[in-house]
Every structure is written in C-alpha cells, then in structure tokens.
C-alpha cells in the first residue's frame, strides 16, 4: 500500500524504529538497503520489517528527511 508520508526514524547504523501516526514501530530487520538518484538528489531506500509490517523507508540526502513510502502487513 502506497503511503508517502513524512515520518520520524531512529537511526544508528541502520533504522531502529519508525514513528508513524503517533505510534513507534520497532524495526526487527533491514532486508535491503539500496540507493538511487533523481537528478542530483541521492535517496537511500530501506526495506525494513517490524514484527507485523513490512515497510519501505526513504531518506532524502538533500532535505535529510524521512518518508514512509509503502507498508504491507504480514501477507
């Protein structure tokens, strides 16, 4: 499901938690980290999972902001 909303993310080496709609979701696992450019802007993408959700997070290296791009439940 496409979300495309700003979120807060706790980061050390990799994302540890994401705060979305006033709820903090602990991240269990980073399945894949990848990057791409749109024009000159470099984006870092993290496919992460919580105990119940799979999420796609995007970090914009120009604004230093995080967005939650997609969410899937445990399918």
């Amino acid at each position, binding site marked *: 499901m496409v979300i495309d909303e700003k979120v807060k993310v706790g980061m050390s080496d990799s994302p540890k938690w994401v705060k979305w709609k006033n709820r903090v979701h602990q991240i269990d696992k980073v399945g894949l980290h990848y990057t791409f450019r749109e024009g000159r802007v470099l984006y870092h993408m993290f496919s992460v*999972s919580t105990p119940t959700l799979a999420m796609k997070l995007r970090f914009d290296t120009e604004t230093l902001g995080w967005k939650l791009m997609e969410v899937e439940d445990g399918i």
Partner: protein
Amino acid sequence: MEFNPAPSTIMHIDLNSCFASVEQQANPFLRGKPVAVAAFNSPGGCILAASVEAKKLGIKTGLRVREGRAIYPKLIVLTPDPWKYRNVHLKLRRLISDYTADFVPKSIDEFVLNMENYPALEDSPMKVVAQEIKKRIKSEVGEWLTVNIGIAPNRYLAKVAAGLRKPDGLDEINKSNFLNVYSKLKLTDLTGIKERNAARLNGMGIYSVLDFYNAPVWRLKAAFHSINGLYWHTRLSGFEADDIEFGRRSYGNSVALGKNLSTPSELSPILARLTEKMCSRLRGAGYRAGGIHLMLAYKNGLWWHKGRLLPRSYFDSRDFYKAAFRLLIEAAPSSPVLNIAVSCFGLTKEDSLQLDLFENIGRRENLVRAMDSVNGRWGGFTVASARSFGGAKTVIDRIAFGGIKELEEFTLNSG
C-alpha cells in the same frame, strides 16, 4: 577434436530467480511463499520472474498472471522495483571484483569470471573460491539470495554447468566428467539449441549431446549451413568460442502497453516519451545517430517494423520523433498494439557535428544541452516536449529483458 585438457578457469554466476528473490530479501514476509514479479499486476500481465517456491508449482517466466493464479490462486504478484535489482547487481559486481578484474556481466543477474592467472586461484581451487563467493553473497548482499555457479574451461560450458542443478547449484564440467554430463543432457537442454536447431541436427543424424560432441565439423557445418558448426564443435570440446564482446551499435527503448491503443494519436505520446528517453541516453553517452527504427507488435500476434536512414546525424529528440512518427503513420496500425519499440542506429561520436546550411545547429545544441542539464539536476522529464508527458503513465522505469546495455549507464552513473 579432443576435449580441452586445460584446468577450468571460467566461472558463470547466475542469481536464482533474481527479481523475485530480491523482493523476498527485501520483505521477509514473502520468504518461503510463491511470489511472482510481473510487468503488470493484472490478469494479462507477463510474469518476469517467479520465486523458487512458485517455480516448484510450475509457475514460470513468460506465463500470464491469470495462468499463474490458475495454478496457485494465492500467488503473490508484485510489479518490478528496478532500483532494488540494479543495486543488488552492483553489490554482486563489487564482490566479484575482489576475485578477478576479468569479468563481464551478461545480464542483471549473470556474471562470467575469468580467473586465469588471478591470485585467488593460486591459493585455492575454483570450487573453494566458488563456495566462498556463495557464502559472501549471503553475508554481504542478502541471506535469502542464492546463486548457481558453473565452472568449466570455457564460457559456454560454464553456463551449461550453472544450469545443471537449480537453485544454489555448484557444478563443474571438465575433461574428466564431460562425457558423463553430456550423456544426461538432451539437445534442447543446451543454451542456443531450441526445437529448430535440434531439428537441423536431427536431419544430420545427431540426436543426443554425445552425438553432437562426436560429430565431425563438416557435418555440423552442413547442419547449421554456416561457420556456426565449427563454433559448436569448439564449444562442446571445451575451447573458447564466445569471448567476443560486441560494442554498442544502437540505443533503443520499448514498452508493453497495458491498454488497447491503436491509432497514431493514441500512440504518439508514448512514442514521444520513448524517443525522449532514448535520445537522453544517446546524448548522455556522447553519441549522435544517423538512423531510426520502429517496431510494433500487435496483440493478434502480427508485427511490423521499419528502419530508415536520416539525412545526417541527429542529437535532438524532436528530429528523431518526427522521423519515428512518419514511420508510425506508414505502419498505419489498425489493431491494438502490444509492444512499441523505437531505436536509433548509425552512431557517431558527438564531436563530428555537421553544420546545416539553413539552420543554426549551435543554437539548437545549446538548447538541448540546457534541457539535459536541467533534467540531470532535477530528474528525467523535468523539461521535455509537451507531447511526451501524455506517455508518462505508460512508459515507466523497467529493466530491459536479458539486456545488459543499460547496465553500462547505471553503473557509470552510480560510481
């Protein structure tokens, strides 16, 4: 010809179920389940990759989503996320470059390594190096990713070896086991031998891979009506016949249409979008082109194509669009189009600019360069012809099937 007695120094690495495995790597909830990555998540969408679990049920690349769901109604269908696959390709590429500088990516999920004279091989035998590569892929790229590795004295047999046991296989074909391997394969198990070539070989009394290996060159030349007979003899004897890399001769873009479109007015925004994409890549690599080609594949199975030389080498998308649109009018499509592909050929380096008597080419070049620069800064299609914006929803980012030419571009851009 005796089988090549040289030690195996060629390794073929093939990522299993590439797109589907990468999606399972990204999302652990998909692991162990039948997953398909399809061009469109609609009943007619073509399946581009099936996970190992889906393959076990008989769901293969090339089936339609409706056929996949008929086999397994709970099949999870995803649309491609090209940057995931490109990044995994780059990670594999970096890992492989620790072992040899002499390697070639054959596609987004296949690499051929020549380990001859590289230190990695001096310390340990090929199979040990291959096992180490497999382990490192799991620990450094993704624990869900598996590869098939084939080892042989030449590229062709390394590919055959990589296909012997899937997934996660590791096999070698060499002078001591080739007869045993050949005796277990059918002619059509060999890459490059499908029904038509098999029929040609049958016509010359060749019915098995062992017959194929033992056949004299004259008989193979007669079967293929060409020098290919000699190349096949060389390949099956373990000597190299496939170490030629072909340079780029064209740039092209294509798209599969989800909707029924057939009139030039419906197809022209898509053609404009494809042409803009193609020209941006052409100019980005420093080329101009002197020819244009258009191909239309119809839903009824028929197809049409035509190429045309242009009066001189062009660089501006508008010139290519005009020429491609003329071809579209000539094609006069009357039934729904399934695929549309445009390409340009006759490449020349851009420093060979031919001035025009009636037009200021310099001004035009400055305009195009300025547009490229804006698009380079803010992303593709920030500035483009108004016509091309109509095709935005149809022409989306995709990975060319089996192609490796685009890999040069994103590898260079990601440096």
